[in-house]
């Protein structure tokens, strides 16, 4: 039970941290736009990945900080805990509230985890069922998609090979995409594209750029996390933001490296979309993979269309010479620091501090007072 409790606590922390980190990212994006760098997609993608890395590394910092506190190197008074801070403010009189009410607020998280683990209320049963069924549904969907992806790769024709990068030709897909197994990288090109030399070169350039950027690894990581965070809007917005930024970065880099004509490149994107929509009525998004262009005929397809329009207008508007601005590391370091500090602050306090004993005493005195007044 203790172990499940710890896992649930870590899960709640991760969700809270994701929401906080995404809020921070929105602020950073606003600042970047204010600095006139709204088209600096490479920089934005690096910042976003850096923020995600900080979230991923935060459990290690939490563990390390806990070990330092336990070893006594740092005094327990040096707490970064948010609830300890709020409690200290309450005892100092900065917050006006009844002690029992304040204790209820402080204990909300404990009450929630107890209810959820013990399935004590109808709400907790509904939440547990929702999380379990959502997890199962996303895992099933991803597994089926991986099976489909494996089938496409198995039925493709080997075309060329550069080290561990395998270029494949497929009759069954109409959109070029890249993916990977444990050891091999695959770039899958629709076999019909062989007859369109310019489109072939642009699509290959685009997919090679995805490999250079490590986009497939990020995509696999995010897809693996999706069953756990499928309900968290911060995670879903985050994932979409990563998907959009990596395509915008890739387009920008391919055009600046290879010097393709912007109009020809946009026409190529449209042709791939058109061919795909003409030849299949199925969803062309297969995970985990990174496609040249997302073609989606589902209810949410309008988002793909909007993004394609945004991709094309960005190519015409943006400065194609954009390179990662190293001075933005100055922004990344404090950003990562804030996220790691927040991860320490949102932890559940481990033991009874003096302030907590004080609050408990106040509550007991208040209850005694009420009982005495009732007795008189």
């Amino acid at each position, binding site marked *: 039970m203790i172990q499940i409790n710890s896992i649930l606590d870590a899960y709640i922390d991760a969700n809270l941290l994701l929401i906080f980190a995404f809020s921070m990212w929105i602020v950073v994006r606003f600042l970047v736009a204010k600095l006139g760098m709204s088209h600096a997609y490479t920089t934005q993608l690096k910042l976003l990945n850096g923020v995600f890395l900080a979230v991923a590394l935060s459990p290690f910092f939490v563990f390390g900080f806990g070990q330092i506190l336990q070893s006594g190197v740092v005094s327990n008074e040096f707490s970064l805990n948010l609830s300890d801070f709020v409690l200290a403010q309450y005892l100092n009189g900065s917050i006006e509230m009844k002690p029992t009410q304040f204790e209820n607020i402080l204990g909300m998280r404990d009450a929630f985890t107890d209810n959820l683990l013990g399935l004590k209320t109808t709400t907790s049963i509904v939440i547990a069922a929702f999380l379990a069924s959502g997890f199962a549904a996303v895992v099933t969907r991803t597994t089926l998609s991986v099976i489909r992806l494996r089938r496409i790769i*198995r*039925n*493709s*024709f*080997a*075309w060329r090979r550069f080290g561990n990068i395998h270029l494949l*030709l497929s*009759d069954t897909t109409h959109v070029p995409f890249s993916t990977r197994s444990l050891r091999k990288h695959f770039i899958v090109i629709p*076999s*019909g594209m*062989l*007859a*369109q*030399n*310019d489109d*072939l070169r642009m699509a290959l350039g685009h997919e090679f750029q995805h490999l250079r950027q490590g986009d497939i690894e990020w995509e696999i990581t995010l897809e693996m996390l999706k069953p756990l965070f499928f309900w968290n809007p911060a995670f879903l917005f985050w994932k979409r933001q990563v998907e959009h930024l990596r395509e915008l970065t890739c387009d920008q880099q391919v055009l600046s490296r290879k010097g393709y004509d912007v109009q020809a490149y946009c026409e190529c994107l449209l042709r791939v979309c058109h061919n795909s929509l003409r030849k299949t009525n199925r969803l062309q998004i297969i995970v985990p993979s990174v496609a040249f262009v997302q073609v989606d005929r589902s209810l949410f397809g309008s988002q793909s269309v909007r993004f394609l329009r945004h991709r094309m207008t960005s190519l015409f508007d943006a400065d194609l010479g954009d390179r990662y601005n190293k001075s933005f590391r100055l922004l990344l370091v404090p950003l990562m620091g804030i996220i790691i500090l927040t991860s320490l602050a949102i932890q559940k306090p481990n033991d009874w501090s003096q302030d907590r004993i004080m609050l408990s005493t106040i509550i007991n005195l208040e209850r005694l007072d009420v009982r005495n007044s009732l007795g008189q």
Partner: protein
Amino acid sequence: MRQKKKSDFLTEVELEFMSVLWSLKQGTVRDVMAKLADDRNLAYTSAATILRILEQKDFVVSEKDGKTFIYRPVLAKDAYQSRSLKDLSEKLFDDTPVSLVARLVDDYGLSEEALGEIRALLDRRLKNDTD
């Protein structure tokens, strides 16, 4: 080049290549490229790859002649036409060829002459069946 699963049907580009090979009877990569439409901006390596895929799919066989490969169709054009029509009839016309023919006669704008030829064809077939 490896192939995992053989497909019974040709993609659009492959069909274009097969049509050329059917008309040439046999040919090298350059022979096929020379017969493609002028606006078809195709690299030699891409054309060679398409022919190798056709070979993997068992639509053509190749024979080495010096440094070049000569490709020859294995499947006749008639056989592929039958296969495609059968597939179309199964998938789109609920496996009822009559519906397919009815749609063709209704919508294709057939001339009197063409309809006469079809009638003669059917008469011949009916006569053969009764013999």
